[in-house]
């Protein structure tokens, strides 16, 4: 899709307007946290526990303290007595507080990478060298490395989501299929690792933290609480962010320790995460083990879905609480009608890096296990996989549709949709019939062709509300202040389009400001595909109110604020289609065709939506075929560099054919828009799993489909 120069105001929404964000990025004027320097700034390096599970013995910091250039060495003993562990910000549950992480480990380390001390020095080199001199005794404890073989006290939470009589449905079923399916541990791996620069202004007493991302206002609240300071004395500022994907921007141990050290020393402190740290310390995601079964009647209609799964939480419960397993249990039903449903969830602590959200959290996993099992069922029944799905899809007349599931106690009610229509459109657009001919046409020796299809329902606009303020200056310029955050998704562009249309001012005259808690009073941020839907709606409401005052002849400057609130989320839905050619000898999965169809109600900017979907597919393909966080028997992460953690490159990511439809706008916000951020990733594992299974005529029971695993599947030795 070609980017358009901005059309006139009034016709901006829906146009592929070029991104406002690109000019600073392309001209190199964008500032990232690693670009920030301050006079007298000290550099922090964290000392991390090297073992998976151990009691912390004697900590000797004297040699490190005496090393050249070292300013300070801080351990848990130096933190305030009043300190609390890092709290859960959403999807909490009584009992989880026992599993929270402290900013620095005190008695026990629970994963390789658990921070124990921090060394502060005049430069990074001195800090790195001194960090090696910190001498800590560890008394090893038995590590727990499998969530499905963990002791009872490792089960942080168990819960059941259900409706209908599942047992009766299975008892009366004509066909039952069941499988054990696994999704492996991988991670968001943003291009720019995390980083912070914290400084205390001695004159105002305000502590400023640069390098915030995703949720600056929420993190300000957490930091103020942990410091026992009033929020007014804490300011978080977002700079340019080189990718977040759910992982970056959550409140981590470093988010307390670095500002704390800046206050302690009275000097600015910088911490820039390196890649090995990023892979060991930043949230992992996706590791789940499912025992899933479906019951069908003789016509292939779905009677029941029954799933039991383990969600590997890693060493601690972090800020996300039960978001990931909660989302799996809530959205596992997908776009289908189930007469009954039961999902039994175990959220289990292990001695690996703590896990949190990553683009389409819980749904990437849910879509893989459900769609994989549907292909197994279709084969069992001798039905075409498309036909089996079509027979069970919800129809337009079914909406709004309560799934009988819930997110954090709130019922899931699909807002709008026409799933059969999107399936038809997708199959036509991606030449399904032609792909079927291609699949059966003779391939080269040792090559196997297969097709994979996956349908899914996403959710968007979680956490209810967002704030916006629109200001019209005397000069006729417009400034939009949003509580949402920019993680590279095109926030400034989309909000400027909405505002310019409502005010009928030129796009170029609208500036969007975000991510500074000093200029925006409150906000929820950018996660769960919420920025355009909730943030955009707040901007629309504020701009429309301002427009009325302009039309009423009021003199500039003018300001309007709005908070948009929606109790229910919106539910975009999509189809992934993939055609693969698998090389028997090397296990290479070559992608012949990749198509994503996504209905998001209303596309504010199709260029941005396409970018989101293509980027999501790239990450989804990486997760399905290459990326894997591997632990050895002792709990060492042995894929902690890009030598072993294989990111997809231009060679592996196929061209992606994107079909954006607007057949089912949502009534749950004034834009009619549903979020577009996660649909590209959500079903990539599912579609590729089905395609490789189809190509080789084997059961694919786990991801990733790495060359060695695919070769083993092809050779019958898996």
């Amino acid at each position: 899709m070609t980017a358009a120069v901005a059309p006139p105001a009034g016709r901006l929404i829906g146009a592929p307007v070029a991104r406002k964000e690109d000019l600073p990025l392309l001209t190199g004027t964008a500032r990232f946290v690693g670009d920030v320097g301050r006079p007298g700034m000290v550099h922090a390096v964290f000392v991390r526990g090297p073992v998976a599970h151990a009691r912390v013995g004697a900590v000797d910091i004297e040699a490190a303290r005496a090393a050249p250039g070292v300013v300070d060495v801080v351990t848990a003993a130096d933190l305030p007595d009043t300190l609390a562990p890092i709290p859960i910000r959403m999807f909490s549950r009584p009992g989880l507080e026992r599993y929270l992480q402290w900013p620095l480990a005190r008695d026990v380390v629970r994963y390789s990478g658990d921070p124990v001390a921090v060394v502060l020095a005049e430069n990074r080199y001195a800090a790195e060298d001194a960090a090696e001199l910190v001498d800590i005794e560890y008394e090893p404890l038995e590590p727990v490395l499998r969530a499905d073989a963990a002791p009872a006290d490792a089960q942080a939470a168990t819960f059941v989501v259900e409706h209908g009589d599942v047992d009766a449905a299975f008892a009366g079923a004509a066909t039952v299929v069941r499988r054990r399916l696994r999704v492996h541990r991988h991670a968001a791996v943003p291009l720019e690792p995390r980083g912070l620069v914290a400084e205390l202004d001695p004159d105002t007493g305000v502590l400023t933290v640069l390098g915030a991302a995703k949720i600056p206002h929420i993190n300000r609240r957490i930091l103020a609480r942990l410091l026992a300071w009033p929020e007014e004395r804490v300011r978080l500022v977002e700079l340019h962010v080189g990718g977040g994907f759910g992982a970056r921007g959550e409140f981590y141990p470093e988010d307390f320790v670095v500002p704390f050290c800046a206050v302690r020393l009275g000097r600015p402190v910088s911490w820039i995460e390196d890649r090995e740290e990023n892979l060991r310390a930043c949230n992992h995601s996706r590791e789940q083990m499912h025992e899933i079964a479906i019951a069908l009647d003789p016509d292939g209609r779905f009677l029941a879905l029954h799933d039991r799964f383990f969600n590997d939480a890693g060493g601690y419960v972090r800020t996300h609480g039960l978001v990931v397993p909660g989302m799996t249990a809530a959205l596992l039903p997908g776009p289908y009608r189930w007469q009954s449903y039961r999902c039994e969830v175990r959220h289990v602590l292990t001695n690996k890096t703590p896990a949190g959200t990553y683009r389409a959290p819980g749904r990437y996993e849910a879509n893989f296990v459900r769609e994989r099992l549907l292909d197994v069922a279709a084969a069992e029944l001798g039905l075409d996989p498309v036909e089996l799905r079509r027979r069970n899809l919800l129809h337009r007349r079914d909406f709004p549709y309560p799934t009988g599931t819930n997110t954090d106690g709130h019922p899931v009610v699909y807002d709008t949709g026409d799933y059969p229509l999107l399936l038809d459109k997708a199959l036509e657009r991606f030449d399904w019939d032609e792909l079927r001919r291609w699949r059966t046409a003779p391939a080269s020796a040792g090559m196997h062709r297969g097709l994979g299809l996956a349908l899914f329902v996403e959710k968007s606009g979680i956490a209810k509300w967002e704030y916006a303020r629109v200001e019209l200056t005397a000069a006729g310029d417009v400034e939009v202040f949003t509580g949402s955050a920019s993680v590279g998704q095109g926030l400034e562009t989309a909000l400027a389009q909405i505002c310019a249309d409502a005010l009928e001012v030129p796009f170029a005259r609208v500036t969007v400001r975000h991510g500074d808690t000093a200029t925006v009073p409150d906000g929820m941020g950018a996660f769960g595909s919420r920025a355009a839907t909730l943030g955009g709606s707040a901007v629309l409401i504020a701009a429309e109110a301002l427009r009325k005052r302009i039309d009423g002849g009021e003199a500039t400057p003018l300001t309007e604020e709005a908070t948009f609130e929606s109790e229910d989320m919106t539910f975009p839905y999509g189809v992934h289609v993939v055609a693969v050619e698998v090389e028997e000898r090397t296990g290479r999965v070559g992608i012949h065709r990749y198509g994503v169809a996504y209905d998001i109600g209303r596309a504010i900017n199709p260029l941005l939506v396409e970018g989101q979907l293509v980027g999501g597919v790239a990450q989804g393909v990486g997760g399905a075929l290459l990326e894997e966080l591997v632990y050895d028997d002792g709990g060492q992460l042995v894929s902690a560099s890009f030598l072993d953690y294989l990111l997809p490159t231009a060679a592996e990511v196929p061209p992606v054919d994107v079909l954006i439809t607007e057949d089912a706008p949502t009534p749950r916000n004034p834009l009619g828009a549903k979020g577009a951020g996660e649909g590209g990733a959500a079903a990539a594992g599912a579609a590729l799993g089905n395609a490789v299974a189809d190509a080789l005529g084997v059961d694919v029971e786990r991801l990733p489909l790495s060359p060695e695993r695919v070769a083993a599947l092809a050779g019958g030795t898996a």
Partner: protein
Amino acid sequence: MTLENEFVVSAGVEPTWRLLLDLERVARCLPGATVEPGPDDGHLLGTMRVKLGPIAMTYKGTARLDEVDEAARTAVVAVEGKETKGQGSASARIRSTLAADSAATRVRAETQLSVTGRPAQFGRGNMQDVAAKMMADFAECLSRTLAETPVDAAPAPALDLAPAVGGVFADRLRSLLRRLLGRRS
């Protein structure tokens, strides 16, 4: 990780077995190791330097005979070390079993190796390949030492594994080329 090595010493089982129990001589065969007698009998102190591509570590630790099974002619040497700089550690249990092979002795060594810290995170495949190469060198040295009398008292040279790493890459390249050429023919 578990590594297995097998080699033949041109000496009988009895002298080989006695030499194997001389821990100081055995420990000298650990690549890059220097040893000195420890405070109590049968317990050695020592350091071991390892270079793994861009990473260099010095481990300080102990070696001891952990199990001796006279009847089965099996001995277990346990080695434990901690990085002198940094947070990492390494430990190995080397189980050697002797069997007569005509007039010579066949030694089977099975090593359980566990490593924490930077080398564990540096290159999964390389770590395994380099450890295998180290064990092969260790086995070769043992074979040589056991075959030799009198004892060579000089410490083994500190081992630079850069060539070993290079060798690993070269081996991989060769096998890749063989496969590619094999496909053509």
